[in-house]
């Protein structure tokens, strides 16, 4: 039996990332997790800040040494906060861009050389419905997620001839630790506006990630929207 393929999941210790680790392990992957926390339930976990390019390169090399060549990368690391545009500090703006867009950029750059050499790989970035429809009181988050779409689609074309696919999932409000208990996304009157009348579950996003990693072999530069009908 061939060696199990290896996947890296950033933000793999909680929320969508943790659900993705579980889904990919269910499909026979051995999974390395990159997270601020080293407590991910994965085959190997490295504590790292994904906004630090050199640290991400080191962490990917460590996972490659421990588990083997990287066949798939899922970038799920992120944080969320609400603020009016005029009240977003320069630090908060930079942090948002560097974690979401920079994390995707850094992890892709660390994993791509091997994928291109082997002419095989699948990258999935976790964006957001706000990347498509814009947000309210979270412009820095929406901008960072929108930028992920631009990077993913550009990268998809750049590496399409090399056997590497790059796709995006765009979740709606998902029941994860990113949504505070008093978040307006959890309010009854908001949920009543959703065709499905409820938040998206992390496992549902992970199911779409699993599809893009394992099954969507004729898709690249595409976006799967999993949002309970929030953006149709």
């Amino acid at each position, binding site marked *: 039996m061939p060696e199990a393929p290896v996947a890296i999941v950033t933000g793999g210790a909680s929320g969508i990332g943790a659900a993705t680790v579980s889904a990919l392990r269910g499909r026979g992957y051995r999974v390395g997790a990159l997270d601020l926390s080293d407590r991910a339930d994965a085959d190997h976990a490295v504590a790292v800040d994904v906004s630090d390019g050199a640290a991400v390169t080191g962490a990917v090399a460590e996972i490659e040494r421990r588990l083997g060549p990287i066949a798939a990368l899922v970038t799920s690391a992120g944080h969320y906060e609400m603020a009016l545009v005029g009240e977003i500090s320069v630090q908060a703006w930079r942090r948002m861009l560097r974690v979401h867009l920079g994390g995707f950029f850094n992890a892709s750059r660390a994993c791509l050389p091997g994928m291109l050499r082997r002419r095989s790989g699948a990258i999935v970035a976790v964006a957001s419905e706000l990347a498509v429809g814009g947000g309210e009181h979270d412009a820095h988050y929406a901008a960072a997620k929108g930028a992920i779409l631009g990077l993913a689609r550009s990268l*998809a074309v750049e590496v399409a001839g090399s056997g590497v696919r790059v796709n995006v999932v765009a979740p709606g409000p998902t029941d994860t630790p990113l949504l505070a208990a008093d978040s307006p996304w959890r309010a009854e009157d908001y949920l009543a506006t959703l065709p499905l009348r409820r938040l998206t579950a992390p496992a*549902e996003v992970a199911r*779409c990630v699993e*599809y893009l990693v394992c*099954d969507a072999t*004729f*898709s690249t530069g595409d976006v799967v929207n*999993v949002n309970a009908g929030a953006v*149709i």
Partner: protein
Amino acid sequence: MSSLKGRVALVTGAAQGMGAAHARRLAAAGATVAVNDIRASDALSELADEISGVAVPGDVSEPEVCTRIADAVAAATGRLDVLVANHAYMTMAPILQHDERDWWRVVDTNLGGTFHLVQAVLPHMRRAGEGRIVVITSEWGVTGWPDATAYAASKAGLISLVKTLGRELAPERIIVNAVAPGVIDTPQLQVDADAAGTDLASIQAHYAETIPLARLGTSGEISAAVELLADFSMEAVVGQVISCNGGTTRSRV
């Protein structure tokens, strides 16, 4: 991976090509599959035998035929949980040369047929308290295509139908989505080659040139998206269009 054990699916346009692949994929995932095509044929009944399903031939552009098909499936199997509306009729012609009756036959089959099918399967899904409807549209329904006014309009209409039904039926946990294939290597390609006065290899190479992944898709790759959208363990993908086109619509949201 999904489990469709105990579920019953109806796949239209299933005698060959993509429809046959969807039927096999759903059967492999555990579903009992009813296969439809416009007329009874050896291919259709052999497929039904192969996957231990049932053959329900009939022209889905006729509303009463759709009702008869859906009711026959439910009578034979006790339920109807999944509809995969894969049937399609395509002709191409410059707009002034497109025969009007043929133009409407394209729209009545592709868009009208799906509308009638949804009406026919809904009572069965409502009785079960949930359902999955997967509509096969087309990349050309997103982008348009020269000389394909009828086909592209019918497929764009299906996208709007799916978005609307996604909103309308999700509160009942009947989940409606679409798959938009790009150019797929199916028997239809030979029909296109003949119509264009060229051979199969030339038309395959011609299409592949414009596809970032530099090849045509396979029926099985579309079936993978169908299986995702038929998965009862997930319902948060609502009213969406899943693209499978090798990267050609990357510039569009």
